[in-house]
């Protein structure tokens, strides 16, 4: 028998942080496969690089903090941060930017606040925004989806791009890159073009950008898996996507010539990924159910507002970070009614 008497419950506990994180990684697989399919090996190289740097940084900080290293690495949280970051950045991002981003995410955003569970901001998104603001060109140069590219970038060519910044011989940037659907839409709208004209470009698929919409479908599949496995609840993803769709729908109904169809907003850019994998990061999101609905809906609205009137083509990272700031306050005012209490809980 154990020497220390421990308080109940006594049975085995099925849930574990590392299993939660492993499930999240598993759920990312379809989307990541779609990304690799459409955008080449760079995606995989970025993931490998980011994971290596993140885990090493986590270990180094734990060592400096004189805390046990194994549990910190073993909970896979740094891996999840790294993968989310790596799939958010362009597949040709220079290696040192990934390194910088991951150091920023793990050392500053996560560990300086006390490590897992204590960070007020989503580390992957903070790192993404940090790089986007610092290196806007590199962070917005995307490869064209496979079927639109004149030249398919091979594995070694990807390595060359990432680690040497060298284009494959005889290939220009234009041959391999293309504007992202959100960029394209935004740029053309700013030029005064109508949606119908813009949609004539071969960049477009059924809902969003060609290729991109399949990436979104992959993440949607993963998101449904997370819901089924009860890793996340429906509150944040549904409220975020619903708010985005409602806002986009309202403007589209008002003027369909200058406002894209709501499905465009959902299936282009990072909306689906953000709704299921980023906004749901439990550490930096709201925890009360009502709070989560407000949190999700606010992110959805902010995404629409920033995409439509803001200075950046995509907005998930900014919207998530802004709502991260608001999360504790929202939680405070949305506490549920406790069993046996009448009316809402008096706010302490």
């Amino acid at each position: 028998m154990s020497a220390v008497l421990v308080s109940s419950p006594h049975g085995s506990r099925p849930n574990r942080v590392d299993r939660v994180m492993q499930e999240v990684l598993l759920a990312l697989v379809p989307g990541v496969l779609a990304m690799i399919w459409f955008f080449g090996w760079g995606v995989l190289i970025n993931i490998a690089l980011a994971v290596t740097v993140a885990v090493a940084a986590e270990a180094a900080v734990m060592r400096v903090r004189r805390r046990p290293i194994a549990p910190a690495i073993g909970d896979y949280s740094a891996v999840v941060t790294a993968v989310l970051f790596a799939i958010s950045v362009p597949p040709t991002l220079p290696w040192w930017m990934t390194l910088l981003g991951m150091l920023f995410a793990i050392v500053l955003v996560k560990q300086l606040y006390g490590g897992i569970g204590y960070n007020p901001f989503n580390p992957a998104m903070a790192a993404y925004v940090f790089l986007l603001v610092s290196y806007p060109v590199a962070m917005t140069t995307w490869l064209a989806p496979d079927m639109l590219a004149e030249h398919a970038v091979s594995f070694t060519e990807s390595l060359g791009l990432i680690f040497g910044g060298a284009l494959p011989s005889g290939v220009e940037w234009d041959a391999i890159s293309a504007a992202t659907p959100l960029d394209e839409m935004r740029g053309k709208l700013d030029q005064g073009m109508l949606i119908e004209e813009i949609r004539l470009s071969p960049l477009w698929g059924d809902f969003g950008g060609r290729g991109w919409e399949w990436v979104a479908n992959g993440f949607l599949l993963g998101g449904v898996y997370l819901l089924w496995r009860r890793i996340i609840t429906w509150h944040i993803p549904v409220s975020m996507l619903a708010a985005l769709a409602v806002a986009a729908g309202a403007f589209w109904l008002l003027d369909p010539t200058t406002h894209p169809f709501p499905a465009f907003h959902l299936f282009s850019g990072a909306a689906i990924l953000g709704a299921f994998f980023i906004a749901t990061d439990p550490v930096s999101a709201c925890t009360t159910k009502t709070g989560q609905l407000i949190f999700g809906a606010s992110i959805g609205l902010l995404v629409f507002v920033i995409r439509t009137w803001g200075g950046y083509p995509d907005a998930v990272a900014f919207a998530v970070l802004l709502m991260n700031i608001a999360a504790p306050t929202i939680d405070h005012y949305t506490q549920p009614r406790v069993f046996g209490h009448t009316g809402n809980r008096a706010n302490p």
Partner: protein
Amino acid sequence: MAAIQSLLRRDRLWTFHGGIHVPDEKALSNGRAVEVMPLPKRLVIPLQQHIGATARPVVNVGERVLKGQLLAQAEGYVSACIHASSSGTLVAIEPHPVPHPSGLSALCAVIETDGEDTWAELPERMTQYAQLDPTEIRERIRWAGVVGLGGASFPTSVKLNPGPDQRIRTLIINGAECEPYITCDDLLMRERAGDILAGARIMHHLLGEPRILIGIEDNKPEAFEAMHFALAETDMRGYTEIRSIPTLYPSGGEKQLIRILTGEEVPTHAIPARIGIVCQNVGSAAAVADAVLKGRPLISRVVTVTGRAIAEPRNLEVRIGTPVSDLIAHCGGYRERPRKLVCGGPMMGFEIAHPEIPVTKPANCVLALTEAEAPDPGPALACIRCGRCAEVCPAKLLPQQLYWHARAKDLDRVQDYNLFDCIECGCCAQVCPSHIPLVQYYRYAKNEVWAREEDKRKAELARLRHEAKQARIERQERERKARLRQKKESLEASPGKSQTDQDAKKAAIEAAKQRAAAKKAAAAKAEETDDA
């Protein structure tokens, strides 16, 4: 339309927030009939097996006691009598380890049994209780030492006396038995359904004839059937309903079961009687029937001995005071070395250090868990704020916030987050992916709050005493000054009198001087004579 019909149906069930599905493990022990445990050589009967004051011993060490004889009398209103569970010699009344989470010792009556199991003279049966005064019946239940056998062990007679201005509309008989592994209520319902109903009928009489709702989780179909058959043979059908409720831990919690069966919520800090409901465990109902209809005190109970470390898990009818180690031995001992020995269920029971501790009235289960059943959860990791705890909390609390504030020892904040609405069911800790011992933090915080309130109370008392003392000193000072002033005034008011006084004093002094001088002279004279 169908929805409205279901709303209007009388057997509608409600739900409570959260709750968890845990493997019930009841099949381990519910396969065999209850077996009567042989008489042990020694019985160690704690004098406090209930909530309330320790009972006062009424027998002397060395005395021969009989089965069912009163050993200790209830002291005060909230207390319960303790009886000898077999005949023999009372060899000691001494501290002995008892089943308590603290692992501490408490006063116990130790009986060396004589093997004859002779009954003491029992009070007469109250078969015609409907014609008796309720007070008399309650007094019998109190004498029999009946307490809540579901685990809380609150004296039943107190619960059956809600007071004249409290109308009880519903009596709930709790046969939910939602804790995994435990099957003693299941077996009791299968084997003694008639007695349970008889007890419920007595309570129905005592409480002013409320309706009776019996809740049984749907993982106990045999018990449900048995209760149904038994009910069909009684005259109670007009006001009694047996309801099968979905298996969901902790549906057997008093507040949760009341919610499931009636849709009502017991207000915070209140007892169910406040909303006209009394809830009793099936075991308590059977014990009430024994006390009233047979005149027998509560001296035994059904205990589930289970867990995969036990060779042959089963239910035993055990005399109060039998050592737990005897129960385990009777069930074939250990199959493998247990990692944990628990009194009660895996969700709310407490670990016991001494297998020598005795079975008490609320002890429903002895659980020996293997390494596989209760693996070491490992060190707690940081909270990732996933919120699963809040999803499963049946009290709809925010366990995570409670944890932060309990850990920070912020006793005001934990109370703001309604710490005292926590029923310690353990759902939050069970689902926590970081394996944080949440309930332990809440127990700690509750104890700290109680300790602080106690300190406050003491400080308040000390302050009152100090103030009273200050007031007394001031009053005495005032009174002294008043007396002096009065004297002074009276002196000033009558100077003539004071003159005569002074003359008299002077005269007295003069007289005394003269007496002293005469004495001196006489002494000197005597000395001279001596010298001569």
